[in-house]
């Protein structure tokens, strides 16, 4: 592989890794605090894409403002979902917690997909790009919309890390994710923290959908493949680990892009792209079953 082709794949891999990281971070945050796997995460990502499309393309809002609207809208949607559908688990109203969480989030995913299908139809939409044009570094050409979207994504991730590390609310999220009962007896409102975590996780998924919408188009089933990658990433990085999710996403992005050059025929190589992540996951799980940053847990 020439150095140019290699650099191109590295840049593409890192950019796509940022989008993966946004989606995976949200999933990881929700799992960390509420201990449930959100099977509707891909549909929250899709909703983010649609909110962005409506505000940027139909209402003519500046693209960055439309991304922020998507974040806020999905934050509110996430809080409402937690309050209505997930909270019963913690009120002792659900007997089989794991099964309930799978069924309810899976059902929500189907509902949201079909809701968008009935409102917008099955056709793809291409919303306004965040930035038009391309950036040239020597012979290397990077499309501007992807780079700008990744830039906004990095800022949002930085913001999340700051909130988690330094703010009172972020520390509450970390405390509840370590031990819900202990957090409760020191006065942390676990219910509100759960809503906050689901809201933040949904906002990140929405941001990813909004940022990627102009690049990969917006349609009701757009979340299906990316969310599988988000699952791969959170398992790869270690369930509930924030640095694990970011690193896992960048590794997956790079691995997928660099591995395509293994097959000389580009069309065939791209067709296998989604499979590489799963191969990587299998290899990591053989040697490190708890993921890169996960803790070993023995289930009793």
């Amino acid at each position: 592989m020439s150095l140019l082709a290699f650099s191109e794949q590295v840049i593409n891999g890192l950019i796509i890794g940022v989008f993966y990281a946004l989606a995976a971070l949200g999933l990881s945050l929700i799992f960390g605090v509420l201990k449930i796997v959100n099977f509707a995460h891909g549909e929250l990502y899709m909703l983010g894409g649609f909110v962005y499309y409506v505000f940027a393309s139909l209402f003519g809002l500046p693209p960055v403002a439309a991304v922020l609207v998507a974040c806020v809208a999905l934050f509110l949607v996430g809080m409402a979902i937690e309050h209505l559908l997930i909270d019963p688990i913690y009120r002792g109203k659900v007997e089989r917690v794991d099964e309930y969480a799978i069924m309810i989030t899976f059902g929500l995913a189907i509902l949201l997909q079909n809701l968008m299908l009935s409102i917008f139809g099955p056709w793809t939409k291409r919303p306004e790009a965040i930035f038009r044009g391309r950036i040239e570094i020597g012979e290397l050409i990077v499309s501007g919309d992807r780079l700008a979207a990744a830039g906004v994504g990095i800022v949002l991730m930085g913001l999340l890390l700051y909130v988690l590390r330094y703010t009172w609310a972020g520390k509450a999220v970390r405390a509840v994710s370590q031990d819900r009962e202990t957090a409760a007896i020191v006065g942390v409102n676990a219910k509100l923290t759960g809503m906050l975590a689901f809201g933040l996780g949904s906002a990140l998924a929405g941001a990813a959908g909004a940022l990627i919408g102009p690049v990969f188009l917006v349609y009701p089933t757009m979340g299906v493949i990316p969310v599988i990658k988000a699952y791969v990433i959170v398992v790869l990085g270690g369930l509930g680990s924030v640095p694990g999710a970011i690193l896992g996403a960048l590794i997956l992005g790079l691995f997928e892009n660099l591995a395509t050059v293994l097959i000389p025929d580009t069309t065939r190589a791209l067709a296998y792209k989604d499979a590489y992540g799963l191969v990587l996951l299998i290899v990591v799980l053989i040697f490190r079953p708890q993921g890169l940053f996960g803790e070993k847990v023995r289930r009793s």
Partner: protein
Amino acid sequence: MTAQLVTDGVVKRFGGLTALDHVTFEIEAGELVGLIGPNGSGKTTFLNVLSGFYRPEQGSVSFEGRSIVGREPSALATAGIARSFQVTKIFRRLSVLENLLVPGLTDWSAAPRAAAEKGRAILDGLDLGRLAGEPAANLSGGQAKLLEFGRIMMLAPKLVLLDEPFGGVHPTLKRLMHDTIRDWNARGTSIILISHDMGSIFDLCRRIVALQNGRVIANGPPEAVRSDPAVLQAYLGTRSARAAS
């Protein structure tokens, strides 16, 4: 004096098992009451009701004159009821000092430096000062129990519920725990202490309540409870109790 915490006819059931059977109990502000009883007598269930983890099916629980049934554990912690757990619960991935600085223990508006100083002073008092920066996962069982004590002190509660604090603790640490409990009590904090360590119970408490099968079978000064036939029977069985009395 008026009672700080009152329970009246509290019933808690788990399926067919009645864990608490019409428990009527009260503690006055500044009292130190021991709660004893054989395994499975309902002691921990009672603490779980008082701290908001369980909601009783019947009966009332009031703290400082207001009903607390149905209130969240976090709300009760804020209202002044702190507790420890039989199986120590600490944030293992945080440092020892950070365990005392989690939200709830520190007000969101509190100055971080002042909170950290308070935390350090508490750790020094519990002989954990030199371990402040260590991950809490590295603490021994006894030290982890002391860290729970430190957490209680950060909350500055009015009522402390201690569930088996001396289980598996080295005698030196146990003495420190005794002193700390006496110190809290001397400052006016009321305490309910569950322990199988009868030496500690009789040493610390001026009143003891005994439970068996979810019912209060004795309530009074240590000497009276120690020789109460119902208590002897609960602990020793009928024949031995007759022989002992």
